[in-house]
């Protein structure tokens, strides 16, 4: 019997017999669709927070991203004559994450360009869900960033909105952090730490409210959608490096952790199944790598933010990380360096 075959045997007498199939005869109820739905639910606090911070414009941007991603997914599957996969909700997740990576003022016509890069180029042309070598939403953000640098980094958000006005007038915390000379950190140009924590500062839609993002991440860990390994080691590595580089200034470190896309990236982007290692050792190596690259780009690079680039770079290393950290089979002796 082949792997998929399930037989309902019908003998000569014509009486229907019971089904014979491969073990196990019980299966979990947690399907791909259920997992993706959980990720969408986990993103609800962050979506709500971004609407609270940036106004309805934020909702329009995210809706546009979700709808265009789902549409591209459906169209590509039809064009490629493959089984339809929109019902697995993964395109909704990609759309939500892409929307969260965009500034609230981005002209709407630019959004489908990002969706096209994410869904068609990165995901479907490489074989669809699970086959993409890079995180679709991250790649799309980078494509937009390089194509429309001005629009992608203008944070003059949410005109007339209560807190938006405040946040919009200043540069983003990441820019301010870079503008300050290393070691001469003052914190004068920056929003208060409380504002950083609840999201009352400039930045992309979904990345500003740390509380909402962490709530979502806890939900994902509790329901075992992700393990806390990647978020903890990623954020932990950035914390350690910025703490040392900032001359052991706790405030400097906290701005680095709460500012930019670190929490969004570490909890929702770096944990993407297809583009992170499947084994726990690999996950740790991957997360530490992301943390080191993010810190280096932020501290020494010409760009204020490095989360997207570091995740993308580490995505490409995943197959090698998996090979080098492959688990040792239970009961197998340690490899000896013979020969």
């Amino acid at each position: 019997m082949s792997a998929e075959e399930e037989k309902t045997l019908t003998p000569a007498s014509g009486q229907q017999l019971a089904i014979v199939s491969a073990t196990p005869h019980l299966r979990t109820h947690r399907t791909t669709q259920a997992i993706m739905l959980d990720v969408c639910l986990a993103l609800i606090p962050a979506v709500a927070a971004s609407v609270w911070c940036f106004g309805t414009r934020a909702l329009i941007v995210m809706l546009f991203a979700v709808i265009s991603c789902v549409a591209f997914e459906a169209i590509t599957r039809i064009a490629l004559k493959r089984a339809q996969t929109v019902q697995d909700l993964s395109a909704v997740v990609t759309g939500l994450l892409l929307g969260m990576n965009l500034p609230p003022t981005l002209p709407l016509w630019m959004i489908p360009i990002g969706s096209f890069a994410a869904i068609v180029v990165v995901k479907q042309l490489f074989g669809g869900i699970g086959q993409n070598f890079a995180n679709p939403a991250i790649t799309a953000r980078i494509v937009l960033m390089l194509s429309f640098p001005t629009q992608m980094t203008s944070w003059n958000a949410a005109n007339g909105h209560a807190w938006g006005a405040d946040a919009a007038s200043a540069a983003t915390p990441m820019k301010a952090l870079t503008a300050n000379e290393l070691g001469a950190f003052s914190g004068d140009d920056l929003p208060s730490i409380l504002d950083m924590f609840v999201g009352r500062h400039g930045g992309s839609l979904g990345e500003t409210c740390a509380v909402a993002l962490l709530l979502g991440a806890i939900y994902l860990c509790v329901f075992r959608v992700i393990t806390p390994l990647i978020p903890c080691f990623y954020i932990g590595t950035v914390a350690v490096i910025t703490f040392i580089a900032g001359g052991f200034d706790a405030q400097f470190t906290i701005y680095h952790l709460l500012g930019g896309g670190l929490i969004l990236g570490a909890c929702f982007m770096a944990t993407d199944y297809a583009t992170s290692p499947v084994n726990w050792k690999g996950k740790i190596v991957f997360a530490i790598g992301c943390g080191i690259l993010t810190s280096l780009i932020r501290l020494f690079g010409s760009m204020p933010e490095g989360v997207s680039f570091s995740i993308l770079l580490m995505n490409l290393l995943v197959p090698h990380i998996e090979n080098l950290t492959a688990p040792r089979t239970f009961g197998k002796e340690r490899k000896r360096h013979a020969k």
Partner: protein
Amino acid sequence: MGIFQQRGIHVVHNKHTSKIKPVRIETCGEVTLMMKQHIGTPCEPLVKAGDEIRLGQVIGDTQAGLAAPIHASVSGKVKRIEQIRILTGEDVKAVVIASDGQMTPLDGIAPPVIKTRDDFFAAIRASGLVGLGGAGFPAHAKLKSACGDVDVLLVNAAECEPYITADHRETLDAGDDVLEGIAQIAHYLGIHKAIVGIESNKGDAIGKFRALCAAVSTPELKITTAVLPSRYPQGAEKMFIYSLTKRIVPLGKLPSSIGALVMNVASVAFLARYIKTGKPLVSRTVTVDGGAVQSPINVRTPIGIQVRELIDFCGLQDVRPKKIIMGGPMMGAATPDLNAVISKCNNAVLLFDDKQTQKRPETACIRCGNCVAGCPMKLLPLKLEAAYRANDTAALTRLDAMGCMECGSCSYVCPASHELVQCIRLGKRLLREAQSREGSKT
């Protein structure tokens, strides 16, 4: 190791029958006794059609070392000797006996006379005992191979498969026999330490055994009860040994190589009863459950009874169950009809209804890593599947396909409904075929 990886998976328990004492099936119309109910060499029938048979009479045996004799489980007349296909796919001979309903025992059944260790092994061989937990390894061969190397006896009452409560009932109903059996084995093998391992979901059995063990432990033989987390496959031999002793069985080696002897709790209890009475292995406890069953039960049934007769005792919701499983839902084999027979190592029959038989279509692997996190052997099921589909024997070898114990955890947790364990099973077959080709070349 192990900090970030929890061994095994959480499965539904569905232990509906744990409070139900086994119903005794006194006799049945007909039994089909397969000549292979163990791992090893099949037996040869020692009777022919028309022979008058008594209960407990040896009707099949062989000279081979790795085998256990087969005893008649009813008295009556041999109807025929036929060739049947057993669940592993092998064709073996089977003796069909029409019961006379009397259950007349064979004359001269008496407790075995045991003076030496060899007498002990001979008696266990004569009893027909094989591992009753499901594996069916001949008990005398296991004990003999463990002789001298082993310092701890581990009694397996984990029963991690959903639905099954046969061993749970044995711990509750025959606790004294279990302890007596432990004492016998420990005495003849020179073991001074025994641990009874029970999963945490069987509180009543744990309480009972804690008290029993405390009462009978002596300085010579220390018996303890260990509570194991209820995670599948806790009862799998390698996992069981690791949980109780932190010893790791090397890949491709037997537990005796690390000084452990694992025996199923029902096997140990039977051994004690055999030494007391001399009655061979002719009946066993079987859990009958599943969505298609009206009232789930445990039965004490003659070995060789057909499922068709068994279901008279529990009733069916639907005359035609959608799936018939011999054994537990995780590792038991599905069989096409109700003619399937209970063998020595069959601890359950599950009859599933339509709802339980629904199958989701396979979707693309999303690399969630659930199969990797769940594999008790720390294999990479998703990569093994790919290697099998690519016919890549080198990759199958590198990924230790042969280390897979086929517990099915990977298939259970897969959100994309991949047939992971089946692919690994077929991959192992590829490796065996490649190996025999190599062998025939040289």
